[in-house]
């Protein structure tokens, strides 16, 4: 039974999972930069908060973490999606759609 996350944390998870799903193996800084670029600085992440999330998702078995040399040959920790992670992504996406749909409906009829 996965932990029930609050919405914001769920959003962060979704962003990370989605990023890794589309871009493959990345280190933490890479994920940060990617989310920033994609959202055009609109989603302002507190960068540090990414790491507890990565840590947690690794321990939940959604991500695989491994140490490998980075672009400039320093050791960096790279994350990639596991099959469980893909399943999780699908759930999170569905949740997100349901949520946005619900919010949109409320906004329309309220």
């Amino acid at each position: 039974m996965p932990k029930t996350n609050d919405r914001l944390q769920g959003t962060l998870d979704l962003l990370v999972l989605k990023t890794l799903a589309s871009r493959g193996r990345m280190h933490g800084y890479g994920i940060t930069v990617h989310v920033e670029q994609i959202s055009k600085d609109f989603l302002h992440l507190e960068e540090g908060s990414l790491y507890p999330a990565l840590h947690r998702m690794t321990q939940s078995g959604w991500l695989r973490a491994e140490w490998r040399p980075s672009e400039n040959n320093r050791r960096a920790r790279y994350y990639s999606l596991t099959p469980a992670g893909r399943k999780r992504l699908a759930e999170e996406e569905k949740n997100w759609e349901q949520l946005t749909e619900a919010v949109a409906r409320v906004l329309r009829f309220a």
Partner: protein
Amino acid sequence: MAWVNRLANLFRRRRLNREVEEEVRFHLDARIRDNIAAGMTPVEARQDAVRRFGGAVQAEERTRDADLVVWLDSLGKDVTFALRNLRKNPGVTSVAVLSLALGIGANTAIFSSIQAVLLRPLPYKDPSRLAMLWMDNRRLALHEDLTSFPNYEDWAKSTSFEDMAAFTPTDNILTGLEEPMRVTGTLVTANFLRVLGVTPAFGRNFTPEEEQPGRNRVAIIGYGLWQHQFAADPHVLGKNIELDGQQFQIAGVMPNGFAFPSQQTQIWTPLALQPRQRASRSSYFLNVIGRMKPDVPFEQARSEMTRIGANLEQQYPDQNRGYGVWVVPLLTQTVGRMREALLLLLGSVGFVLLIACLNVANLFLGRGAARGREIAVRAALGAGRRRLIRQLLTESTVLSLLAGGLAVAIAFWAIRGVILLAPKDLPRLDQIAIDIPVLAFTLAVSLMAGVLFGIAPALWVSRVDLNDALREGGRSMSGTKRLRWIRSALTVAEVAFSMILLTGAGLMIRTMISLQSVQPGFRTNNVLTWRIAPSRVKYTTGAQVATFYGDLLRSIQSIPGVQAAAAVTDVFLSTTPNSGGFAIEGRPSPPPEQQIEATIDRVSSNYFVTLGVPLLHGRFFDSHDGRDTPPVIIINETMAHRFWPNEDAVGKRFKFGDASSPDPWLTVVGVVGDMRRQGQDKLARCETFMAMAQRPARGMILVVDTSSEPEKIAGMLRDAVRRLDKSAVLFERSTIADQIGESLAQRRFQTFLLGLFALLALVLAAAGIYGVVYQSVSQRTSELGIRVALGAQKANLLRMIVGEALGLVFLGAITGGLAAFAISRTLSSFLYSVTAADPLTYAAVLSLLAVAAILASVVPARRATVVDPIEALRYE
């Protein structure tokens, strides 16, 4: 399975931490590199990186903290870190540990006394159900007066009490040995041991039949007597013991440690009263102890006894009017005034500990300022505020636990000192020990102290924001100012608390001084007193006893070094003295409740001369007062004033008891000056003295005025007694001065302890002032440098700094003085001839504080005057 992972992480902890650190460092470095690439300066790049990273590591820690196992693990790390930190500052640490240890140690010592004296149950079965019952003597305002046998029998009908026993202490002379020996004994009703809920270690209890005269020749002996006098003979039962020349068969031996009613009691025999004594409602000589029924609360028992007392007053107005019943729980009775004294001392050590805590809080705040940069760096690296507070509190708790350990050692020695110095007659003080409850108390106090002195510095120091942290200087000027304000407030509180303690101690010392200078009304120097019990076999009649004392005193007077020798039944009066109501010739006798009792003592004719008591009217006894002349009596000034205020008492006649009794009238022949015989703080009562030649008493006290050390003639005195009566027993050798000293001993001891604690408080407060001034001078080096550079005189600088410190002290002293005044009423029952608002005491305490404060601030302030302006400004 997330928790398996977490558990596994615990064992991989070290590696994991390194990995997290490395990952974060990678992230920060990457961001800095990108920032520089985007055109920032390296400093800006770094600041931006840290800012963007935010409180992430804190968040990380929050997730970790949720895990108890992990929490314990990090606690261990905190403690290790705390110890390392404390070791880094040996000076601050040892001062802090020492002051806390003194505070906690004093608390431990006092608490262990309270535990032993007030809290530990008495060594009887269900001791909370035991109570002492007394005649409430409203005529004398004496709550705890003895009762009579018929009253005891009526009390025992109470439905609140399961059973009641009567007893009366007695001096037994153990004869039939090589040398007769005095043993403290008690005559008891047969149910006495059952009421207490104790049984003999071996042998049997008394039977009701043994309360009959003639069948009462049985005795139960104490463990100590059995050990020493009977060499722990296992076949002692059935053997005989000779008391005052009569044979008693030993029926039982009490277990080790049992001694009731007094610690000295060694032998118990049945209370076998003659029919006349059993019937006399006005012969007051019995103590009564009762056991309440299991479900009866004390208040209910007391109100029932009050009702019974009122009924008896109505039923027997002639004997009982003016008397009620007074019930006291046995523990309260045993502990007596120790309770108030100990609670007062506990309050005092509480203040001492509070001062110690304030002191250490101040030290930590001062050091926290110096540690600001270290804390800032750790905050910048992502340590959360809660995490920082926890770390700092761990540090203070570790410190206070160290202090607690040392405190137990201090308390151990302090308790030995207490037992050594305390008056010997204090109840249960010999049982003081550091046991589990005491250790638990020390632990609790240490932890509380740790939080108490740790919380303020922890909150202060952890108020770090990252911008401030990354600035070179560490902390802003306004922060430093606020910090100084907090530290000043702590110092003011410290001074205030020590002012309270010093005032209390000052008042007690003043009381002690005035008590010691009280004139008791009789000679106190070089007067030996020695109780004597002449042989009952050799001297059977009163006339023989009188002749014995006459011969003995003459023979003592011829001993070289003896100025005068006399005999008296009692030099000092106990709280329940031998006394009685009396009727004055020619006056209607007042209603019983208005009757005054007077004490009765028998004296040899030269008693007053021997003790230097002045004759105010009439004459002393002389050799003409004998058995065949009319009985005469001497009264004291208080009695003369009270009953013959405007006339000469000499020549007046009165008799004890009823005017119609067949006893002859006693003629007043003299009025002597008042003597303080109940203690230095008690005024004389109505007292009478009869001539030994007319009313002999068997047991008396020899009173010998010697020209030098009284103890030196003790041997010759004993020889003089032996020459007349080989089997006379001499006991309780003392001097008048020693006995007055003993009567003040408990008070003196209490004053000594309170004074010691006040001194401790003063030293701690002075140390606090020293620390604040010292650190203030170090922190203001640049300001002082500027002042010197601008031409400030060194003397002015010194005055400025000392003046600031004295301002704090003044503020503290005023606050403390007001508080002391407000709470000094709690002290008033301990004071004598000093009011709680005694201006002299306040003035003395204030000057003492001022001197201490000046000393404590001048020394560190002198450093300010040697500031080299160039050096100081360069430092900035």
